């Protein structure tokens, strides 16, 4: 490269280095590469070069052109990056600002427990059945072997609605058992179903509400026996409470609609409320083999079919599972309580995700 070309390169490099903004940079680019630019002029003058030198001079000019182009573009990139950095340095936000509020709704604990119960018994092949809250005396009592004079009626604290047409007054169902009767009348065995719904009893204190929720189950088949009742409920309780070795005890009892009848207890610590250990027993649900009279009342021959049924309070198992002390807030709709105990609607119960 001849001296004049070397000088141009040196000059341009120096000018580029001195340019601190894109405007200065552009002036340099125009001065060198523009229509009247230095390099453009040198290229134009190539024709005037003696032919014997022209080839060599041409090669040198092309080399210089590439070098200048690269240097100019590189400087542009550097200046642009610096300009962006300078601009962004002034664009600070307060990153500690709270995000714009997005209302978060939550699922009531009763609904969550229902979902969990449905998932577990669903895995055992049960369907979910439902029925009306207002029932006839026969569906709530008579069909279930609780005749009018039965002492168990007195325990039920039944709410009555006005009678009409000389029939016994309709009742607010005291348990979800009427749906078991409806199921047996409407569907031939075998039956595997659970019933969940609102139930009503005239009782109101820290552990009783005039309205609460029950879950019952009904399993009818040819050869399922009391051992299966125990297995089914033990499997349920251990899954629901997520305690693999939860102690479960079955204790002889009496219900008009089952025989034998059993109360089911789980192991806990009465003092701390901790489930699964502690040596105390807590009654959690009632169960039994379906009474032959109940089967016969629904037209099922007890010589052919047998099975079992159970019932538990949704609120009760919810309170135990989550260590809740008082029943009354379940129905208060106190925003603070709902926020505290509510469940994410986008995380519904799915067995494969774990309960």
């Amino acid at each position, binding site marked *: 490269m001849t001296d004049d070309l070397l000088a141009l390169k040196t000059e341009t490099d120096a000018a580029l280095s001195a340019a601190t903004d894109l405007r200065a940079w552009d002036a340099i680019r125009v001065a060198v590469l523009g229509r009247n630019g230095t390099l453009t002029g040198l290229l134009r003058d190539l024709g005037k070069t003696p032919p014997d030198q022209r080839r060599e001079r041409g090669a040198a000019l092309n080399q210089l052109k590439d070098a200048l182009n690269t240097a100019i573009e590189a400087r542009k990139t550097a200046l642009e990056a610096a300009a962006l950095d300078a601009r962004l340095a002034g664009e600070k936000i307060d990153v500690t600002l709270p995000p714009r*509020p997005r209302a978060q*709704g939550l699922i009531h604990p009763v609904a969550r427990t229902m979902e969990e119960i449905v998932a577990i018994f669903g895995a055992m092949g049960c369907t979910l059945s439902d029925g009306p809250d207002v029932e006839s005396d*026969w569906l709530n009592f008579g069909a279930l072997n609780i*005749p009018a004079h039965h002492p168990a009626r007195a325990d039920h604290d039944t709410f009555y609605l006005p009678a009409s047409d000389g029939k016994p007054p309709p009742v607010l169902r005291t348990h979800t058992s009427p749906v078991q009767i409806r199921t047996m009348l409407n569907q031939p065995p075998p039956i595997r179903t659970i019933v969940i719904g609102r139930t009503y009893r005239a009782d109101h204190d820290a552990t009783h509400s005039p309205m609460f929720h029950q879950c019952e189950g009904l399993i009818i088949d040819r050869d399922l026996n009391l051992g*299966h009742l125990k297995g089914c409920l033990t499997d349920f309780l251990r899954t629901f409470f997520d305690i693999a070795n939860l102690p479960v005890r079955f204790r002889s*009892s009496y219900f008009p609609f089952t025989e034998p009848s059993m109360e089911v207890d789980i192991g806990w610590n009465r003092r701390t409320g901790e489930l699964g250990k502690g040596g105390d027993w807590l009654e959690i649900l009632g169960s039994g083999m379906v009474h032959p009279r109940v089967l016969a009342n629904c037209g099922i021959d007890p010589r052919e079919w047998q099975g079992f049924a159970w019932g538990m309070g949704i609120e009760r198992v919810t309170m135990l599972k989550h260590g809740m002390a008082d029943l009354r807030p379940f129905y208060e709709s106190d925003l603070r309580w709902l926020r505290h105990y509510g469940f994410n609607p986008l995380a519904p119960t799915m067995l494969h995700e774990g309960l």
Partner: protein
Amino acid sequence: MKFSLSWLKTHLETDAPLETITDTLTQIGLELEGVDNKGAALAAFRIVHVVEAVQHPNADRLRVCTVDTGDGILSVVCGAPNARTGMKAVLARAGDTIPESGAVLKIGEIRGVKSNGMLMSAREMGLGDDHAGIVDLPADAPVGVPYPVWAGMNDPIIEIGVTPNRGDCFSIRGVARDLAAAGLGTLKPFAPARIPAAFEGGPSWKIDFPEACPWIIGRTIRGVKNSASPKWLQDRLTSIGLRPINALVDVTNFFTLDLGRPLHVFDVAKLSGDTLTLRRGAGETMRALNGKDYAVHADDCVICDDAGVQSIAGVIGGEPTGCDETTTTVFVECALFDPVRIALTGRRHQIVSDARQRFERGLDPALMPDAIEAATALILELCGGEAGAVTQAGAEPAWQRDATMRFARIASFGGSDISAGDAVTSLERLGFVVRHRDADSVTVAVPSWRNDVAARIALDQSPELEPARAAAAAEGCVTIEPECDLIEEVLRLRGLDAVPAVSLPRVASVPAATLTPRQKRSALARRTLAAQGLMECVTFSFMATAEAAPFGDTPDALRLSNPIAADLDQLRPTPVATLALAAKRNAARSYPDVGLFEVGPAFDTAAPLGQRLMAAGVRSGASPRNWASAAVGVDAMDAKGDLWAAMAAIEVPLEGLQVTADAPSFYHPGRSATVRQGRTVLGRFGEIHPRVLAELDLPAPMVAFELDLDAVADPKRRRKSAPDLSAFQPLRRDFAFLVDSGVTADAVLRAAKGAERTLITGVTLFDVYEGDKVPEGKKSLAVEVMFQPRERTLTDAEIEAAGQKVIAAVAKATGAALR
């Protein structure tokens, strides 16, 4: 039922410790409800004789006592002012636990003198507040005997729950029999001697109401002296919370508990005439032993003398003929009454008595002759006198019956491997008598006291059953029920806990769907509404009639006959009503901005189909105040958004819905709507009417929506069509239309969309303007229309033509002009 351990042991020969007894009770179905064992904590404390009490050498206030414990002499330092030579006191020794503090006593040295124990105050023993000095026992208190034994506190009181089927265990003898059968000892024999009649005469029975009273016996005892009972009998009764009254009455109470056999005693001097008649009540009024007056009903069985009603049979006796200290001749009643009639009478008059409790569960009919002999013997022992002849009316009913159990059913029904031999032994221990046994089955006679086994079968079959099916089922019950009764007995005595648990066999390797489409809809609606920011609530199905009325009909048929409180008497017409009140409660707690929803019932009628499952919600107040945007009060469109989100989630086709301004009157008439699919009302939304807000003092503004989940049709299961994914870019053009104020947005949008169906794939309303820039009575609606070419890019002329079609269609449908 309560009883003391010592009373139980009058019937049960057993060495079993208390805990074994109580555990067994629970295991066999006589659930333990509590044990009151005050004496247990004091068992180690002995009665001692203070041989000498002298001044402590180094302390003014202390004494050094030399005590005789019955098996040795100990030296004890005592600070009590009343410690003195010769007294009887209670000693705790090293290693004993002091009930008051829970501390374990150690041998100590107090100011240089060794103390081997502690003389106890009442407070230290947990027996009261007296700490003025040590317990000062009478001089005859026996040295060396544990204090609770001497004080009569060593008798634990056991309380059990007796289930309605076990009338036989409403007696101490019955409990003893069950425990003996469970292997806890031997039932002591009970065979009272026949006491011969010393005279003839006295009242006699006449039954005019045999359905209520099949059999009754009685006996006159004359020359009695009816004073207070002896201490043992008073102690028995007081130990379980009964008040001793006088010997004759105490005897009846004793046998009510001891044998489960209620008795009644009439003072013969107060009876008119010689015949006691059992008949139906006739509206007379009787003053009962509880001091209250009862008007007897024709369905009540009463016992009358010539003067009138003297007892409501099996429930409560009358005051005028009751026994008191003046009684010299007594007539003892021992009867069998129909359990159902007793239950109904007791309920009718709201009388809960020990007698009623037992009669309504059914009594042992064969026990009556023995019971009256035992009662006679005890009366003669306590009150003296002489007994007349046993008089009776009616006869012992035929209670004898058999029950058969197939041994294979112990496993196939009971899930247990108990052998045939063991099963039969259990039944025999319970009093069943084997009448026939072969390799496969056993037939036993049911004992007289077990009215719950092989009972008469009363079915209440559905009237809709096909007759053959009903008959077969009834026949099956007759065979199976007695067998279940016996299997229950066999299992119960070993504890049902002993039956091995077996997991349910699978029906399919992957279970079918658990939920019906309707149930799935409610689950989806619930999750979707919560995802809209609404909090799920559970509110009561009933509420105050006055608060329900603004929200809909409150028919009498939906008003509870026996509400628990006046404000919970009416089944709600819509969950919006209870949710609105919930919002009000939150506002009162200073949380006025809430969004609440519920999935629950609304009630139209009391019929099973008169109930609808609703997803409903309310919003009140404003959006949350924050730095980025101002708080905005809730409006009807918030509620519509919630409703639309829920409907979209459950696959209601939103395109075809009709939205009309005819919501019920609790909504604002101009800012609410009913949503229909065809003729079916799916839901409603809008602002709550200001009058309702004012009437119920609800926070304003408030909006609500309701979605009738029962009205939504199950979605059809269809494969989706192929998606519309044109390769050509869509074009968007804006149009602003000037329309009359009354023109709905929906009309403009539908017209625009319909202008060129193949080309227009979307119309969005992006501005609504009413104000001074448009003429009075007009508004401007601005829409963006999206044209989607499919074959090729549109030419300018084609775009222009399509735009003109939109303008023309909207103008034709709504009278709109392009702005």
